[in-house]
């Protein structure tokens, strides 16, 4: 490919409107979620500059209106460990008025998703304005991004399985982390998980099953939920599994209020 880096930016971002090429965003398959982070973290949800992520939804501030931001829309969907962003791109046209954000720890992958979204916005004016991505460690900093009860959907698609028992604490679904996910989700919000690793599928299901703030979504509901189909078809990882004829294991749960018997 002939690279005309007129912007001098990232190599994959040569021409505006052109989708970035993954080969320029090679990254390790794994990243250590336990290590101290060296990227900027917002101090609190109020500190996140969402206007920068969703310029279309945040009209330029009118200086004479001090409280204009009070009505600004909030992110409602979070794709945790969004990888190359396939799900976000798939969800965007389904919920054009809902803001969604992907969270990814590997910075090159995040760069790719950023460039991909910008390219999509360029070539489809008015579309894909509702998706964006942040580089962060969601296992440590979820409450720094979202307020209590802010999210209506959370996605955990094909997370790192961390087979060794010693490394189970690195899994993105755990009894302790579910407390935090429950905190940022509204009552009635839905958490979607899928994996091609049976052992991890069992783990995620049992964590959710045993958590008092989550309740399984019924099979009938799953069939009518348009999002469920995307879980295995929209992401790069899901397509790879489908290509190889692999099995997938879903667990979809709803955030419920605590009822102490």
């Amino acid at each position: 490919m002939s690279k005309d880096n007129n912007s001098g930016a990232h190599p994959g971002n040569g021409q505006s409107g052109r989708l970035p090429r993954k080969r320029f965003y090679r990254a390790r398959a794994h990243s250590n979620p336990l290590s101290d982070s060296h990227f900027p973290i917002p101090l609190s949800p109020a500190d996140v500059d969402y206007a920068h992520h969703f310029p279309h939804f945040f009209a330029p501030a009118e200086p004479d209106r001090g409280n204009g931001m009070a009505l600004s829309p909030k992110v409602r969907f979070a794709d945790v460990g969004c990888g190359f962003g396939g799900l976000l791109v798939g969800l965007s046209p389904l919920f054009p008025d809902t803001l969604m954000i992907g969270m990814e720890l590997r910075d090159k992958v995040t760069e790719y998703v950023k460039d991909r979204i910008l390219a999509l916005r360029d070539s489809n004016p008015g579309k894909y304005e509702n998706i964006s991505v942040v580089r962060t460690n969601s296992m440590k900093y979820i409450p720094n991004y979202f307020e209590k009860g802010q999210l209506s959907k959370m996605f955990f698609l094909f997370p790192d399985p961390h087979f060794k028992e010693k490394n189970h604490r690195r899994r993105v679904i755990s009894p302790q982390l579910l407390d935090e996910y429950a905190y940022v989700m509204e009552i009635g919000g839905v958490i979607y998980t899928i994996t091609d690793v049976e052992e991890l599928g069992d783990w995620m299901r049992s964590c959710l099953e045993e958590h008092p703030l989550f309740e399984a979504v019924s099979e009938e509901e799953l069939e009518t939920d348009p999002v469920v189909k995307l879980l295995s078809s929209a992401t790069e990882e899901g397509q790879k599994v489908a290509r190889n004829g692999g099995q997938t294991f879903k667990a979809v749960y709803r955030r419920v209020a605590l009822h102490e018997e």
Partner: protein
Amino acid sequence: MEEDEGETVSVSEVAPALIAVHPLENSVAVAVGSELRVFDLKGDCPVSMLADSGGPSHSDTIRDITFCPNGSLFASAGDDKLVKIWRTDTWSCVRTVFTEKRVSAVAISCDGLYVTFADKFGLVWLVSLGEDVEGHALVDNKPVPILGHYCSIITSMKFSPDGRFIATADRDFKIRITLFPKRPLKGAHEIQSFCLGHTDYVSCLAFAYPSDQIQGFLLSGSGDSTVRLWNFIDGILLDTCEIGAKAGLIKSEESKPAVTDICTSQDGSLIAVTTQSLNGVILLNCDFSAKSLSVAQVITMEKSYIPTSLALSSSTECLWTVMGASKQPSSGNAQLLTCLRIMSGFGKDSSDAHPHDPVVLQDNEVPGGEKLLLKLQGSLDVAEKEEVLRAAAAALRVSMHNMLIKKQYSVEKREARKSSRNDKKLKK
């Protein structure tokens, strides 16, 4: 700035001496290193702890000690992975819990039925102190994990005085407020709020429930040299007091003294704060109606006396302060020394002519007198050993920094560390 210190820190890990006072001022406890020293103020005599009934005694640094609100129980825990629970009437150990990880904080629930402890991987565990019909403690009930901060050191853990909440603070700048459920053995899953705003590790927490306010407040101290006031129910930051700047402690921009301990009277009328650099105590004023914090008074003591821990009984007569370190580089294997200073004059005489006029007690005016000092300090003339105190303060600063502050590496240094990773080495 500190390029090669990273690998050698664990060698010189030093922990501060701790102090706790019985809520009715029946006794006072000091922990330094693995030693627990208790003085019975009511009986006016030193206490010898009866560890025989409850397993081994502490063999490594004690990281936290606490009395339960009614004073009947006392808990100690630390680096030896033991949590010991004591009856304060006989000072016998009723329970020793063996844990998997080093313990960084311990608390007793308000009803005295549960002990919670936090480990260095951010998990909070709970043991039930439930008794069977004959009144014997159930020895076989194991600790269960009830909540977690994701792989972050929990630096402080406190129950709200009404028993509804448990607050935990960590080195990742976070304070988490969790509802403490009626049946906590199933875990504490419902998070009430996160109090976010500190820009460095959070070192200490204290609740205040002023009688004229509907809800309580939380105060927190941090490595960012501030004390913050929170509406913890909604996780709202109400005020920030730049302790270092306000109390005139910052001499140069680079060293912001970390707040090391904070302690409040239950109604919040008295808030005392210690920092890493002040030889004394800072008293704060909190106007809970206006939701503002301000420095009321800076009380300085001898030049090298930098208190590491504070305690207040609920009667608020005296503020107890202690200074000491778990290892004293200069003194070899000699007995660990601490230094105690007690301030009085916080009595609530409503005349209000002198709202705060506390005095630092001379050694001969201390409750318990020389007997107490000998027991808790380890020696009577500690104050003269300025060298020891100064070395302790310096060691503590380095140790706290190494444990809680995130290491900043330059880009080159980071690349160098990456290339020395084990998995990469193997391939070569």
